[in-house]
Structures are given as structure tokens and as C-alpha cells.
């Protein structure tokens, strides 16, 4: 089992990938013809160089490359490619793992396409170019990075990754949904357990008898509670797993992590002209910082209300601090940019406020009984 990839049946996989490449190549070529601009031209170049080993493909490669050789972007890209465009270029080296095919990632820090078609795998592969050690380090830095040390955004600017954002949110959704349901179950167990309800009933009866002894007059209307409580206890339904928690939490979390940074990015880029951090970097930051809510959600299972609020607010404070520190440093780092300075405070307030709202919604919607 060591190292042998059971998915691979040698030639078939190449055929499969080559066919995929053919599709991508034709689509990219068509995009080139339609004049999408310089950046898309190189979309066909790596695949053509590497997949053009067979004779029949080399001619299309040559013609399209000659037609677009006037573009300077193409020339830049070809010089940066480590493998020269020879028909005998080894194919496997470039497609063996994502890390090898990321020669294009160093070209842009603004999160541009890197020249690949947006619906191809290679476009997104550069956003998942992380190892386990990288992810663990980023988790540590993203969650309690406010305490000092290198900034998360500096670390991540070159290679932002969407792995943490996506699977961190998935883990949070899982924990909140299961935890919320389990807490609901504990709550229903404790309130409908026979001993407690019996005790409540006995207390009510004793109070009623005492009142009757003391007052000859019939008790006024305010004493209607005793029958009401017993009816409430008996009408309590058996606990059922609430599946809507999953969908609600997923919608809320993913919207927060993916759409809020979009608005931040738009303000930052279009109003203040700050180009240093891409949208993906901001999503990456938000994704890793939201993981601080995971231990808080686990603590929220305990039916102690104070503990729940303390846990959630601590997580909120930690993640807000991390977010604030990073975005603040990003904006203040733009020395000549007056607009960036102006919005730094406003943006900081918006970030912290949104995080607080998220925390309160998380607590109220899923852990309140």
C-alpha cells in the first residue's frame, strides 16, 4: 500500500488527463481567439508545453503560440517556466503534485487567475498548495495570532489557501449542529426527568395546601401557575434531532467567511486602492480565525448559561483581536495612502462588530433554550 496509487491504471489515467487537457486547451484557445487579454494566453501554455509530447498536438501548439507571441505576458511566462517547450519534455514531473505546477503562483500576489481557466482544476490547485504542517501553523497563527509574532497576512500573502476556510467552516458547522442538538437533548432530559418533575409537582401541591389552610378565601387568579406548570411538563415533547440546525449553521458560517471579506476587499481595493492582500488572503484569514469558535462550541454543550456566554465571548474576543490586528496592519502599512489610513479605524470597527454579531447569533440560534 505504500506509495502505490490504486487509482492509477497507468495509461488510462494519462488518457483521462490528456482528454481533460484537450478540453481545457480548446476552451482556452477559444478564449484566446475571443481576445480575453494577455493573462489567459498563458493558460494554454503550460498544458500545451507539457501535453504536446505527441506529434499531433504539437502543430496546434506551435500555431497558437506563434499567433500570441506578440504578447509580452506570454513571453514573460515562458521565460519563467522551468521546463523548456520541447516535445520530449517529461510530462509526469509537472503533474505529479500540486507543488510542482505552481510556478505561476509566484507571479501574482493580487490573487489573479495565474492564467488558468476558472473552471479548471489547475486554477484552484494553487489555492490548496499547503502541507499539513503549513495548515497547523496557520491555525495557530490565525486563531491566537493577536498575541504577537509574525502577522498572519504576511505569512499567507504569497500562498493563500482556501483549505482552512472551507474545512474549518465545515468543522464548525458540524460541531455547532451536533453540539446544539446534544445540548438540547440534555436540556430536555433534565427538565422532563421524572424525579425533577415529581418534585416540582409535590412542591406545588404543598404550596397549594398551605395556601388553602392560611386563606379561607379561594386563591385569586395569580395562583393559576400550579396547573400550568404541570401541563407544561406533561406537554413537553420527546427530544428530536433538529436537522435544520445543520443547514442554518452552514448558511450562516459560509456566508460570513466568504461574503464579508468580499465587502472588505471591495472597499479596500476600490475605495482605498490597497492592492497588497487578495480576496483569497482575506478569506483565508477569516477562515482560520473562525476556528477559534470550535472549542467554544464544544464548551457550549454544558447546560450552564454563564459558561456558554463566557466561552462564546472569549472566542469572539480572540478571533476579533486576530482579525483586527491583521487588517489594521495591512491598512496602516500603506504609508502613502491617505484613504487607507482614513478607513483603517472604520474598518476595524466594522470587523469587530461583525464578529460580535456572528458570535451572538451563533449562541442565540443554536444554544439557547
Amino acid at each position: 500500500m505504500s506509495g502505490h496509487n490504486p487509482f492509477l491504471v497507468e495509461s488510462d489515467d494519462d488518457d483521462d488527463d490528456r482528454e481533460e487537457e484537450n478540453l481545457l486547451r480548446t476552451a482556452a484557445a477559444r478564449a484566446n481567439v475571443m481576445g480575453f487579454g494577455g493573462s489567459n494566453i498563458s493558460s494554454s501554455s503550460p498544458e500545451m508545453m507539457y501535453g504536446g509530447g505527441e506529434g499531433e498536438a504539437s502543430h496546434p501548439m506551435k500555431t497558437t503560440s506563434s499567433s500570441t507571441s506578440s504578447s509580452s505576458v506570454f513571453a514573460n511566462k515562458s521565460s519563467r517556466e522551468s521546463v523548456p517547450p520541447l516535445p520530449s519534455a517529461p510530462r509526469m514531473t509537472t503533474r505529479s503534485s500540486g507543488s510542482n505546477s505552481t510556478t505561476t503562483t509566484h507571479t501574482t500576489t493580487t490573487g489573479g487567475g495565474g492564467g488558468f481557466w476558472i473552471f479548471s482544476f489547475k486554477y484552484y490547485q494553487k489555492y490548496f498548495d499547503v502541507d499539513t504542517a503549513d495548515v497547523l501553523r496557520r491555525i495557530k497563527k490565525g486563531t491566537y495570532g493577536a498575541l504577537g509574532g509574525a502577522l498572519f497576512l504576511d505569512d499567507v500573502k504569497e500562498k493563500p489557501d482556501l483549505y482552512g476556510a472551507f474545512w474549518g467552516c465545515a468543522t464548525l458547522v458540524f460541531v455547532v449542529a451536533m453540539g446544539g442538538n446534544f445540548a438540547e437533548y440534555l436540556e430536555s432530559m433534565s427538565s422532563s426527568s421524572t424525579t425533577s418533575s415529581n418534585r416540582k409537582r409535590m412542591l406545588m401541591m404543598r404550596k397549594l395546601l398551605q395556601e388553602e389552610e392560611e386563606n379561607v378565601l379561594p386563591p385569586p387568579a395569580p395562583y393559576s401557575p400550579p396547573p400550568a406548570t404541570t401541563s407544561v411538563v406533561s406537554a413537553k415533547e420527546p427530544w428530536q434531532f433538529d436537522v435544520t440546525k445543520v443547514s442554518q449553521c452552514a448558511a450562516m458560517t459560509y456566508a460570513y467567511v466568504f461574503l464579508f471579506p468580499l465587502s472588505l476587499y471591495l472597499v479596500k481595493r476600490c475605495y482605498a486602492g490597497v492592492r497588497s492582500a487578495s480576496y483569497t488572503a482575506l478569506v483565508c484569514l477569516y477562515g482560520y480565525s473562525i476556528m477559534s469558535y470550535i472549542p467554544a462550541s464544544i464548551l457550549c454543550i454544558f447546560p450552564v448559561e454563564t459558561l456558554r456566554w463566557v466561552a462564546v465571548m472569549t472566542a469572539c474576543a480572540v478571533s476579533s483581536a486576530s482579525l483586527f490586528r491583521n487588517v489594521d496592519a495591512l491598512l496602516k502599512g500603506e504609508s502613502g495612502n491617505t484613504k487607507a489610513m482614513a478607513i483603517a479605524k472604520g474598518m476595524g470597527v466594522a470587523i469587530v462588530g461583525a464578529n460580535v454579531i456572528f458570535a451572538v447569533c451563533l449562541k442565540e440560534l443554536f444554544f439557547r433554550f
Partner: protein
Amino acid sequence: MSHGTFDDAPSSANNNNSSGFGSGINIFGANSVRERPQSVSSFQDISASSTLDESISKTFKRDIDRIVSNVKNVLDAKRVFLGNRRSSIGEENSQQQQQQPLRDWDLYGPLIFVLLFGVCLSSSAGGGSSSKTKSDAGTIFSVVFATVAFGAFALTLNVKFLGGKIIFLQAMSLIGYCIFPLDMSAVLCWVSANSWYRFFVVGLGVTWSCGASVPFVSAAVVEERKALAVYPMVLLYVTLGLFAAVVV
């Protein structure tokens, strides 16, 4: 019919089959050629008429046989729980055994298992008397089905983005087949509501599912990223297991 075979066939056949769903006729598959003893002029005509003219029961039987054999291969209990034993014959035998579960992948099996899982979970919820309509049968079914379908899709994309060399639909088929132990767990959970029994049964199912699917995925990714590819898979199966334990 959505399936693919990776037998030793001419390369054009591979293109045909690996281009996704293909046609409904497996022209170059070895099975159909062997079945038809008719004497017709061309090679293609022989196999083309064979699968068109056969009775529906034969078609169904062929598909069901494929599903059953895939289940047996992918979820081989001995392999999952006891690990790979190297036989005395040597490497090729074990490699073949490893490749064996994935050679004849199809998407029928996963579809049936996912539907079964959803129906299992939602039927018990709908059948129970509940005035509270927060989670009725329809909601449960849709959430479970969406979780599995989208989860399998996201998992496969995850492995592909991390640089793993897998074939997309084949990996989805594998993930779908590994839902089968959870199906069994869900059905067994019907038997009793005792928490310990349920958690034991579901735990066994989750271990089996993970044990069957994790080796394939981790072998497809480089060493430094194995944990990144394996963790979401475990997350998915644990989620489904918890669904089965609690909702049934």
C-alpha cells in the same frame, strides 16, 4: 448506465469509457463480447446487438452483479480490519488486489446506498408522532442527501486540489460505496433505541467506512498532505454516523 472499466482494451475504448458516462452500450467490454455467439459481419455489430436485444432482467442482473462485486471488493472486511497481508506470490498479486476494487467503478451503487440511507433516516422521523414540524421526514431526507452528495463532491475536489492523482468519478464512486456500512448501521439502529447499542453499531460502521476508504485516498496524495486529505473524509463519515445514531 454510468460506469467505466479499465480493462486492457484499445486506447480508443478507454477514451470512450473515461469520457464520463459514455453511451449505454459497452461496445468494447469483454463481457458483452463473450456473451454473443451470433455470426454477424462486423465486430461492432455483434456486441451492439447483444446488449440491446437482451432481456431487461439480464441487464439488471449484470448491473446488480457489478454492484455486489464492487461492494465485496471495496468493503472487504478482512482487508479493512486485518490489514493487507502480503501473499507469498508477491507484489503483483497484492497490487492487483488493491487495484481490483476500483477497476469496475459505477455510480449506481452509491446512488442506491445514499437513497437507502436517506429513506432509512427520514422514515423513522416521519413515522414518529411529532407535532413539532421542525424536522419532518422531507427536511431530514434533503439534508442527509445534500450532505452526502455535496460531501462526496467536495471531498473528491479536495483531493484533486491538493495535487492528488485520482479520477474524479471513480473517487466519488468509492466514497459512495463506503456509505454501505453506515446503511447497515442505520438499519440496525432501528432495532433498539439503547444508546450504548447504537453507538457501538454506528462506531463499527464508521470505523469500517473510514478503514475502507482512507487507504485509497491517502495513497493518492503526497506524504506531507495525507492528513489534509484524510481528515475531511473522516469528518464526513463521523457526521453521517452521528446522523444515523441519533435520527433513526
